[in-house]
């Protein structure tokens, strides 16, 4: 059984309390806290460790499953997230070509090159 001395109290908008983590690493939440978060037994939560603090965010189980399946599908295909990230420059270039005229893109290239040259001449970091 999880051990808890959770004494959640409300103070305006703030709710908190103390708890004790049991030998299996479990921490129980009092009913007021569960009610405030809208969670119950079997609810899905996400947690983020922020330095020495823990942020607990109620999640719908469907999103957690979707994100896990997406990452798993990528992995099963022998791909990494970096493989997808590596496509970004080409994807960005395609979006540019689709959205703007060739004349405009050429002008943009020229202006950018001139700005970079000018910056170099000024001795600033390029």
């Amino acid at each position, binding site marked *: 059984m999880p051990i808890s001395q959770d004494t959640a109290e409300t103070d305006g*908008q*703030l709710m908190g309390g103390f708890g004790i983590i049991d030998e299996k690493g479990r921490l129980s939440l009092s009913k007021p806290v569960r009610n405030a978060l809208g969670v119950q037994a079997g609810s899905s939560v*996400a947690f*983020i460790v*922020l*330095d020495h*603090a823990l*942020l607990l*965010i109620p*999640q*719908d189980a*469907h*999103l957690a499953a*979707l*994100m896990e*399946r*997406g*990452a*798993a*599908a*990528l992995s*099963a*295909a022998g*791909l990494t*997230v970096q*493989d*997808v*990230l590596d*496509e*970004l*420059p*080409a*994807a*960005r*270039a*395609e*979006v*540019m070509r689709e*959205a*703007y*005229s060739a004349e*405009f*893109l050429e002008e*943009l*290239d020229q*202006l*950018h090159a001139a*700005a*970079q040259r*000018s*910056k170099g001449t000024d001795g600033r*970091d390029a």
Partner: protein
Amino acid sequence: MTAPASPVRLFLDAGVIIEGCLGRWGAATGVLILATMRANFTVVLAEAIEREVRRAVTRRTAALEATMAQEVAQSLAGWMERVRIERWPLPSEDEIQAHLAFILPVIRHVNDVPAVVTALRAQPDWVLSTNTAHWNSGLTARTGSRVATPLAFLSQLHLPDAQ
């Protein structure tokens, strides 16, 4: 975390969305999960970024089995359905022209222009990017928004000046 008077507006770069949705649990995932707190956060989504993300995923998954590609795409779609999104269309050529003198000296790649111009126009509270070469200090100074990596953003959340 109580709901602020108005949600904190987060401009997310393509890398954050891809890493957060498809990568192992990390700071980018944390940001995306945090963003599902609709009372607290709004995702400022540039059309340029959304198109880039979809295109990059499609390019990489096009050769996969349809079910696998679909699961990858659904991860992104599922997250987008759960966050409050403020969409910004691609800036027009005129809108880009109006900002060029301001950003060209500090921008690294011409293809970043639409996203940067969108950020300038949207004025989000935060620009979150995994690419600090792209969102560099020169650009940060000009956008007027706070620019941070997902990890840096999450790390400062517990500090009194978080919002």
